[in-house]
């Protein structure tokens, strides 16, 4: 699917800022066309311009250092044997990682993985079906449905927390990783439906018509034609669902209090609660282990998003 990305976007990845902004350089513009030369003359790329650029660079770097400093502490603590809340000389040891895994981080990350995968599978399947039906079929009350989807994805989650807890008490679904995943999936479904419906709207219908004439049934058309074509959108929706479930804190805190089911988010929190006895080194390692999958998925996601809407070339003009 990577080939779907337009060539000129090959160099963009983590920083969506990296592509040419408005003031993409007077010199480049001047090479392009005579009009641009006259613009360049208006701009006067003189010493004052260069000075402004230097000022912009330095303020930007200062802000960047401000954002970077807390992260440096985290990395420093994770790799240092005598980590405290203060900065110390890192000793490049992986001992903290080994220690935190043997003290329960491994199992908790496994639990997070379970919540993430199960809720992603549920939410993705449900949203593909609904998104396709909303995009292609006549659905009664479609406009109302879509509006409620939008409204629900903006609702403060706290409002649902206590009722969901009560419903789970009545159904006997408390302390079950599976039903916790169902609740997490439901939490992502409105946004995923909205995203996939809009994405499938962009998929050309011609492929489906061709498949229908060949005699394919609707399930086959969805599975063999629509799903592959909408794959970038499906991946984005499922990655966002996974990230949401992976980091989920409040819902598991309330509806699954079984210590064996503790996901990593709550594991880290209970380590913070130890307060004076905090072991900064292993806990920093724990936080890094917990963050890496999300960072990787975000990188993947930005790649897919850039290539996302580039499949129009499949239809003959």
């Amino acid at each position: 699917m990577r080939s779907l990305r337009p060539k000129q976007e090959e160099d963009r990845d983590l920083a969506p800022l990296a592509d040419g902004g408005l003031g993409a350089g007077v010199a480049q513009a001047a090479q392009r066309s005579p009009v641009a030369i006259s613009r360049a003359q208006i701009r006067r790329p003189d010493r004052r311009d260069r000075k402004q650029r230097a000022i912009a660079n330095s303020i930007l770097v200062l802000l960047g250092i401000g954002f970077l400093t807390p992260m440096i502490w985290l990395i420093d603590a994770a790799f240092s044997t005598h980590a405290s809340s203060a900065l110390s000389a890192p000793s490049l040891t992986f001992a903290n990682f080994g220690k935190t895994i043997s003290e329960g981080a491994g199992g908790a990350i496994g639990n997070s993985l379970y919540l993430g995968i199960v809720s992603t599978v549920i939410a993705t399947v449900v949203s593909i079906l609904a998104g396709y039906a909303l995009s292609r079929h006549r659905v009664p009350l479609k406009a109302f449905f879509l509006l409620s989807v939008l409204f629900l994805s903006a609702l403060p989650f706290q409002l649902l927390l206590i009722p969901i807890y009560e419903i789970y008490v009545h159904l006997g679904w408390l302390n079950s990783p599976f039903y916790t995943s169902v609740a997490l999936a439901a939490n992502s479904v409105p946004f995923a439906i909205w995203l996939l419906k809009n994405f499938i709207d962009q998929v050309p219908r011609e492929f489906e018509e061709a498949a229908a004439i060949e005699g394919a049934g609707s399930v086959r058309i969805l599975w063999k034609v629509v799903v592959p074509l909408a794959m970038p959108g499906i991946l984005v929706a499922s990655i966002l669902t996974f990230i949401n479930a992976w980091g989920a804190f409040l819902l598991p805190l309330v509806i699954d209090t079984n210590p064996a089911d503790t996901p990593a988010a709550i594991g880290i929190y209970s380590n913070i609660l130890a307060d004076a006895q905090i072991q900064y080194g292993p806990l920093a390692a724990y936080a890094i282990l917990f963050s890496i999958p999300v960072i990787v998925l975000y990188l993947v996601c930005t790649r897919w998003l850039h290539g996302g809407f580039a499949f129009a070339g499949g239809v003959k003009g």
Partner: protein
Amino acid sequence: MSADLAHRARRWRPASAGPGKLRPTTTLWMFPATILMVGLFVAPIGYAIYLGFTNIELLGPHAQVYNFTGLANFDRMIHDPEFWSSVKLTLIFVVVSGIIAQTIVGMALALLGQRANITFRATVGSVVVLAWVLPEVAVAFLWYAFSQAGGPLSEIIRRPHDDLLSTVPFLIVCVANLWRGTAFSMLILSAGLRSVPSEVDEAAQMEGAGYWRRLFKVTLPIMRPTIVTNMLLITIGTISDFTLVYAMTGGGPGTATAILPVYMYIEAFTYNALAYGTAIALALMAIGALISVLYIHQLRPELRKAQ
């Protein structure tokens, strides 16, 4: 054979092209999503409105058998000084550390990125985005450790013996929120900045307008819809934020950082008062809805133009 093909082609109909019949597959495919959304969104909303008017508790006799108590919870709320201090904290948290600070810093990063070299823009952009991508609990731990006595932050401000989460807890929580949330504004606003036609700016430049004048009189007014939308999205994201604050401070010391979501959790699940917690959640939703209406009111000229 060809008649069969023609028949199939006729039978297959791109449904939204016309008001065709409701197909059984449509019902089937909408079913799971409808069940999930009715079961875990619509029913809970209705249930929440009901529970807010009862005396249900987490444990004890009122956990099983509870009654309708009318406006008792809301009466208690109006006379609860901790509730009002929580509302005040929430508004500061959302408006100052969310809407104002994140828009200004995000806009500054977007504007500086426009003028700076591509290397600096890409590097600083990545760092800011990384702060946003990290899981909330990791960010909470990061800032918890960062602001301990003897931690890097206390060294930077030269007061190494201050535990900043005890002396200025709410300020630290707000800074952490700004640190985490700015990337979103930066991404949205720099995309908005890129869509401002350069001809307009150049025309103003030919008229002799300086940088700041062009920024405030040309660029920002064109970007108004983007800025307002961004503020709305920040509000929706910040008003229900629980994890960052609760994992850092637990709402304390005392109730110094108990924004409404945290106060609601503490009332419901620490102090047993599920019904009162639900009433607080309803108040939270009302505040969120009120702010959203203000934004939509602001966007009305643009919405009318779009129609």
